[in-house]
Each structure stands twice: as C-alpha cells, then as structure tokens.
C-alpha cells in the first residue's frame, strides 16, 4: 500500500473512532450521510472513485446544512454543533489535498473526541477518549514518520508513551486550573435533556413511575455509622398547594432566608456528604434538619428545603450537618393558612372532610389524637400498597379512602395531608427519597430513583413540623427494609433490587464504589473541592489567582526538569566546544538556505556547500570544515587550537550576516 493510502486509511479509522459513539445519539439522516461519505472516502482511497469536484462539494455542503436544519432547526447547541462538526470532518476527508488538510482532520478529531464529555463523564467514556487520543496521536506520528520506519504497534506505543509523558502537565492543569462556577463552563441549554427524578409537582403516579428506575439519585458518605433505614428520609421538594388533582410547590416564601439552630446534642447530630447526580432541578437532598451546610450559595427556605442557586446540571457534592431536633421554630400566619387550604368546589371530597371532622370532635383540641386516628384508619382498613392503583375521579380522596383503597405513597401521603387539613391541622407533602442501600464494599449509601417516596409533615404548635409517614402505617416493610419487601408486583422492580447476594451483585457494588470515587474526585472536582484540597495541603486562603500562579510555577518547574533532562542527554554533544561552534556554523548557513543535513558528514556537507557559496566564502568554509574534522575526529587539538577555531567560526558567521 502506498504511504499516502496508509495515511488516509488511518485518518478514516480515526474519524470513525471519534464519531462512531455519536451515531446513536445524533439524528439518523446525519448518521446516514456520514456513513455514505465513509464509503465514498474508502472508494477514493481504493482508487475506485474520484474526489468530488467543486460543484459536488458545494452540493454536499448544502445537503449537510439542509439535513442539519431539518433535524435540529439550528446549528448551535451541543447536539447540533457536534453533528455538524462530524459532517464537516467527513466533508474535509472527501477533499483532502496534501498534508495540511490531513492535519486539519486530525485536529477536528481531537476536538470531537473531547466533546464526548458533553454527553457523559463516566470512567468508560474517559477510557475510550484516552484510547482515541492515543490513536489520533499515532496518526500524527505516521504523518511525520517519513522513512516509514514504524509499524502501527510501534506508533501506538510511541503515542501512548507521549500521552503518558504528558500526564504530569495534565494533572497540574486538572488540579490547578481555576474552576469558575458560572455559565462560562456551563453546557449549552439543550444538554439539559430530561432525566428521571422528582418533578416540580406531584400527582398520582409520579413517584411510582420512578420506582422502576435503578438509576442512582445520589450517594452519601456518613461520618460515623449509617443511621437506621427507617430514619433515612431525604427531604426534597415540599408541596403545599393542592388543586384537587396535583400537589405543587409554593414558591412565595423562597427568598426568605432561614437559619436553623439545632439542639446540638452529640447524639442528634448527623454529618454526611452527598454526591448528587444531575437532576436538572434546584433542590438538594438532606436529612431533617439541615442546620449547617458547607459550600457556597446554598439556601434553606422557610419550608426547610435546601436550594442550590442554579439547577443541578453536573455532579454536585455538598456536606451537610443535620440535627434531629430543632430548638427554634415558628409558623407565620400566612403559612398556617396556606397549609390548611383545601381545593375548591368540585374537588371537595365531602366524605373525607366529614371523616376528619368526626375525628376532630372525638379528639377535641388534641391534634395528636387526630393524627393517631388517621394512622389507625390506614392501618385497620384493608389498604393495599401497590404500584398499579386504579384511577381516581374528581373527588380523588373520597374514591381512594372509601372505595379503591389501593395506592402508592403519593396516595397515602396526600390523603393523609388532606385529612389533617380538613381537621384543622396545618399539613404538607414532602417528596424525596426514603432509605438507600449500603454499599458493603465502601460503606456508603446508594440512593436510587427506586427509593423515591412522599410523606407528610404536620404542624404541632409545641414541637414544630413533625414528619408523619402514612405509608409506614400501611406497609411497615417499605420503611423498615425497603421497597423490595413491601410491594406486591415485585417483577416490576429493577433487577438490582432483587439480585440477592450473588457475585454479580458484589461486582455491581465494586463498580459502583469505583464510579462513586470517580464522581467524587474527577467529575465532581469543582471549585469547592479544589479549595478543600488546598486547605488540606496547608494553603488556607487558596484563590484562583494563587492557583494560576501555582500553575505557572509548576509548569516552569516541569519545563526546567525536562530541559535539564534533555540537557543531560545532550551533554555528550555539547561538552565539546568545537562541536558547538560547528553547529553554530551550520545553523548560520542553514539560515542562508544551505543547512547541514544531520546525517551528513563534514566532507559530504562541504562538497554540497562549495558550489553554493561565493568562492572566497567557500574557501573559508572549507578551511573551517577541515579544521573541524581534524579537531573533532583527529587527536583533540590543544585549547589554543580550539579557541582559534571558534574564533574563525565567529568571524565567518559574523560576515555571513
């Protein structure tokens, strides 16, 4: 195969390697056009087809733009951008003409391979990207390997070695490059595609649909023991407005800042760090009650919700201190009213209200009695905890409480809140996750979407907001041990929850432990993490200016080290002043256009040089080369002779300018 053909094949493999993983993600027409162009390029390399002429190229470009605008409607954004770039790279391959074009294709490939991280940041992707980068580098080596002395394996080894040698610089950049939290590093908007997770509102079915997902919501590492399963209520969004169908969050009091003061007794304090997978919402999850949060910008609302100023679009890590008891609590009158409100006419659920009123008369002023009555009702009536509840009508609570009596946690919590409000007790729904599975490998908690849950909170004047979980009354197993033991329709649960104690499961835990660390240390390495690292290293007041300075210093150090190493390598050459002078001589002549080929011996060089210099210069140059030959290859001359030689070279090169 010709050298040119080899280079083109290598390029084609490279571009497929880089764009292949995008194909399932980009629209079919884009993939199709890419593959057609692949075949065309292969045909060109095999001399079975000709390169497209100018008209065809313009046609192809228009086709590409047309396909892009039909598929995306834009050329901007993550998906459209990478898709278009892929098409352009293939187009470039079609019109390759000379070395420059080949280099351009490789550089576009480098960019494309990096853009994989827009889509996913898993360790697999990182390994793939590394491998592809090594391959692309080996293609660059192929371009420069003029004597074709290296086969593919040698080139790959060499590229791998180069990448390996670059790792110190990579690490310096990774650790020190300033992470500026803000839109500069943010992903374009279309990257925020829908993900599974809790939504902004809750209606029957919105939690049970999550149960079937084994995706990880977040992982938690506790300082000390993991609290018992029944205590692990991870608070997320709070829903206090009900229209008869859907529970919604109330945002009116969001801007009010709240500081909770806990009882601060040792036994009540739980400290933990959450690594949250992106869920495209603002809220963070915490146990009751988050009193202290490390990190910047987080806020606690009046509804005791933790909010991040921005949507969680990347893996986020935060440390929380929770206190089981609070020492300050209050309820504004507006909040009391809000949490007592029932939906309007048509959705009144009169039977439910009547039931609640009956309990209220029975209990008198004692709110706790009412709650107990309600829980007893759930316990004693034949309620069923199920993933597939029947549909409910306009008076959803009446239907559920008195007729179907089959439901999931959203049914129980909303019915309970409804009953409490009807009985005059301020109540609201809290959504979040309940429980989690312990990873035996690394002693942290994995909370999956399947742990999604909803429960109720009621206001008791002497205590504050108190959690009540009516689901626990119906199905204690759900809270004590987890969803897998509580539900009838086990076959609808994700396999991981049912896998038992198999090797497969152990492997899963090991893998999860690894990807958790990956998320913690690589993907989640943000500004906070960076500062934390530097605090640990003893730099108390690390800021990004300091990091830039540190980065520059480390780069200089690495450069100096490499330079010193090269110098040491080259010492054999440069300990000889005669050789140094001769190199300068050759260098000056090279500037005049008659440089020495480094495989040329002195007399070979002179015979080539002679014709190209003016006779007088040629004479001097000849003398210099003769002297050099004697001094370097004969018995080394005296220092005086060496000095004389150096002097002559200086004179000669001075005149050459």
């Amino acid at each position, binding site marked *: 195969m010709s050298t040119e053909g080899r280079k083109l094949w290598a390029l084609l493999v490279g571009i497929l390697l880089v764009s292949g993983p995008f194909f399932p993600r980009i629209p079919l027409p884009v993939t199709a056009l890419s593959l057609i162009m692949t075949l065309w390029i292969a045909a060109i390399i095999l001399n079975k087809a000709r390169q497209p002429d100018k008209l065809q190229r313009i046609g192809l470009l228009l086709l590409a733009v047309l396909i892009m605008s039909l598929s995306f409607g834009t050329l901007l954004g993550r998906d459209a951008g990478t898709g278009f770039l892929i098409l352009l790279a293939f187009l470039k391959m079609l019109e390759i003409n000379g070395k420059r074009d080949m280099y351009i294709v490789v550089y576009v490939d480098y960019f494309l391979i990096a853009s994989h991280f827009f889509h996913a940041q898993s360790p697999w992707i990182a390994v793939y990207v590394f491998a592809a980068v090594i391959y692309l580098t080996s293609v660059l080596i192929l371009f420069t390997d003029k*004597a*074709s*002395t*290296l*086969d593919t394996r*040698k080139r790959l080894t060499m590229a791998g070695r180069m990448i390996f040698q670059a790792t110190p610089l990579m690490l310096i950049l990774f650790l020190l490059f300033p992470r500026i939290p803000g839109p500069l590093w943010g992903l374009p908007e279309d990257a925020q595609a829908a993900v599974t997770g809790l939504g902004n509102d809750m209606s029957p079915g919105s939690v049970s649909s999550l149960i079937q997902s084994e995706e990880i919501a977040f992982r938690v590492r506790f300082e000390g023991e993991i609290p018992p399963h029944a205590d692990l209520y991870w608070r997320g969004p709070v829903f206090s407005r009900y229209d008869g169908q859907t529970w919604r969050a109330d945002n009116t009091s969001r801007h009010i800042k709240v500081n909770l003061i806990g009882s601060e007794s040792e036994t009540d304090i739980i400290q933990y760090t959450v690594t949250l997978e992106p869920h495209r919402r603002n809220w963070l999850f915490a146990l009751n009650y988050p009193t202290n949060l490390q990190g910047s910008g987080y806020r606690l609302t009046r509804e005791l919700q933790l909010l991040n100023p921005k949507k969680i679009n990347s893996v986020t890590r935060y440390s929380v201190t929770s206190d089981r008891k609070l020492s300050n609590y209050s309820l504004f009158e507006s909040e009391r009213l809000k949490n007592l409100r029932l939906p309007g006419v048509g959705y009144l659920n009169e039977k439910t209200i009547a039931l609640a009123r009956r309990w209220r008369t029975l209990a008198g002023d004692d709110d706790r009695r009412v709650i107990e009555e309600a829980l007893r009702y759930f316990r004693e009536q034949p309620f069923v905890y199920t993933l597939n509840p029947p549909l409910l009508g306009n008076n959803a609570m009446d239907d559920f409480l008195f007729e179907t009596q089959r439901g999931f946690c959203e049914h129980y919590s909303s019915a309970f809140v409804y009953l409490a409000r009807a009985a005059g007790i301020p109540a609201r729904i809290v959504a979040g996750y309940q429980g989690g599975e312990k990873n035996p490998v690394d002693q942290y908690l994995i909370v999956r979407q399947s742990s999604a849950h909803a429960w109720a909170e009621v206001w008791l004047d002497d205590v504050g907001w108190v959690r009540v979980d009516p689901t626990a009354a119906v199905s204690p197993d759900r809270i004590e041990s987890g969803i897998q033991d509580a539900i009838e329709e086990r076959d609808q649960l994700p396999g991981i929850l049912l896998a038992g104690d198999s090797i497969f499961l152990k492997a899963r835990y090991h893998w999860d432990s690894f990807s958790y660390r990956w998320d913690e240390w690589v993907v989640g390495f943000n500004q906070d993490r960076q500062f934390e690292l530097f605090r640990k290293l003893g730099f108390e007041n690390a800021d990004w200016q300091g990091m830039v300075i540190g980065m520059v210093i480390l780069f200089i150090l690495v450069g100096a080290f490499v330079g010193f190493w090269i110098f040491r390598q080259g010492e*054999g*050459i440069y300990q*000889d002043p005669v*050789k140094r002078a001769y190199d300068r001589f050759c260098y000056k002549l090279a500037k005049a256009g008659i440089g020495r080929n*480094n*495989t*040329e*011996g*002195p*007399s*070979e060089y002179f015979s080539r040089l002679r014709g190209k210099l003016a006779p007088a210069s040629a004479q001097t140059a000849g003398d210099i080369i003769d002297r050099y*030959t*004697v001094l*370097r*290859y*004969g*018995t*080394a001359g005296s220092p005086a002779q060496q000095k004389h030689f150096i002097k002559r070279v200086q004179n000669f090169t001075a005149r050459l300018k």
Partner: protein
Amino acid sequence: MGTPVKQNARLIDSLDDALSAIGQIILGKEEQVSLALTCLIARGHLLIEDLPGVGKTTLAHVIAHVMGLDFQRIQFTSDLLPTDVLGLSVFDRENNLFEFHPGPIFSNLILADEINRATPKTQSALLEAMEEHQVTVEGTTRPLPDPFFVIATQNPVHQIGTFPLPESQLDRFLLRIHMGYPGQKAERELLSGADRRDMIEQMQVVFDLKKLKLLQSQAQELHVSDALLDYIQAILQFSRNSNSFEFGLSPRGGLALLNAARAWAFISGHDFVVPEHVKAVLPSVVNHRLLAVRGKESDMTAADIISQTVPIP
C-alpha cells in the same frame, strides 16, 4: 597534520603503487579493489557475490601476487570433503608413522570459489578456520599462516544443489562486495588488451609479508575519536531499535564496522577516521548482516536506510 602520516608515508606510497597495479588488471573497479584491500588490511575475510566471469578469481589472483602472498584456490563442489580443505594424515610406511599432509588452507590467501556449492559440513570447516586462524585435525591444532585472508565467492543465483550461506555465517565475512559488469570503456580495454593472467605474471610484487603485517598493525592503531565511536554506537543502536530490520547488528558487526572504517581511512591516507569513512564501508559491512524488513522501501538497502537516518553526532 600529525607525525603518524610521515611514519606511514612510505607505506601509503607502496599501498598506492599496489592499488594502481591492481587497477591495471581489474579495470574500472577502483572501489571494489580498495574495499578488497581494506578487508585484507583490517584482517578480515572477503565475500564476493556475483555472477561467474566478472573477474572474481582475477581479483584474488592479482591481490595475492601484488601483496606477495602465496595463493591457493579451492573450487568448492558438492563432493568436496573437509579434509580436502584442511588436509589429512597419511601413514608413512618408510618412517612407520602418520605424516600430516596440509590441505590448501595452509596459505596466505585462499580463494574459496563458489562456496555455496559445497555441503554445510565443508563450509563450516572453512568458516571455523577463518574464525580461529587455526585448524584442528585429528586432535592436533595447527596454526594457519599469518596473514590469513580468505576470499570466498558466492553465486547469487540459487541453483539446485547449492547451499547458500545462512545469515549467521555471513557475519564471519568482514566485507561483502559485488563486482558488477565493467563499464563500456573498461570492457573495451579488456577486450583489446592482453591476457590478464599473463599480465599478472609479469607484474612487480609490491609488498612482502613483513610489510603487509606492518600495514595491518599501523591501520589497527589509527586514531578513532569519541565522536566517531558515538556515531558507530548510534548506528548499532539504530539497527537494533529500528523497525526496518529483522534483527540488529551484533557486537562483532560493530567491531567489523570500526575496523573496516579504520582500514579504509588508512588506505585513503588519513590519520584518523571520519564519519565519511564509516559511510564508505557501510554497504559492504552491513548489507549482508542486516535483513531489511520485507515490504518496506524495497529499493533501499540497509546501508541506505542507516546513512540517511542516523544523525552524525
């Protein structure tokens, strides 16, 4: 330049005489003649690979004559036995004891003609003698004359019933050269001139054994600078690390390169070795030692690849 030149001046003059004398017989092949003498002076052995009739035998003849060496020619055939080369003991009835009859190998210059036609057994008898500079027959070790110079010829066309020397054996030859056809002018002169064999008979002997040995030891002492050793080491490293060759040069190959370059520099009248001398002997030293990897720049020999790739330090 240095004093060694003056010391060697007379030797060099004689060498020039010898070269021009040989040049009168072997026309238009100055480089091959010089390489052959280089080989002799570097105490190596020479392999000439070429078609029959291009003057291989004549070259051996004229060198032997001019350099004052006694000359034996062994025509290798498939039924040639090791004893035919080395000699054997014959029972002497009169004196009632075994008497050793030395074979043709006990000479200064051996022409081992068409070495690839003999069986490996016979070949290796010769190759061992070349390496050891002595032969062991029937338990008695007998030294070979000094200088001892073997010129072997090999027909490159692999005919039926030949045993081409394996690469490992080729390493024992310091240099391998090709004669090639003579040029137009040389051919004409050859056709119109007198019989070469007669001319050799009438030729003056330039060297004797003592002078030749002096020549060899003088060449051996020629100055080699560190810079040049760096170059030779770079070549060795390249041959071992590069992908172009099946395997690299052996340490013996490295010594061969150095000695050949020395002898070449000596013949050229230099009192030290420069990289150009290394490059000049490179094809004859490395091309039979290095096997260029198939399918890669097939028109480039190992020496071409080396001299175009290895930078001169």
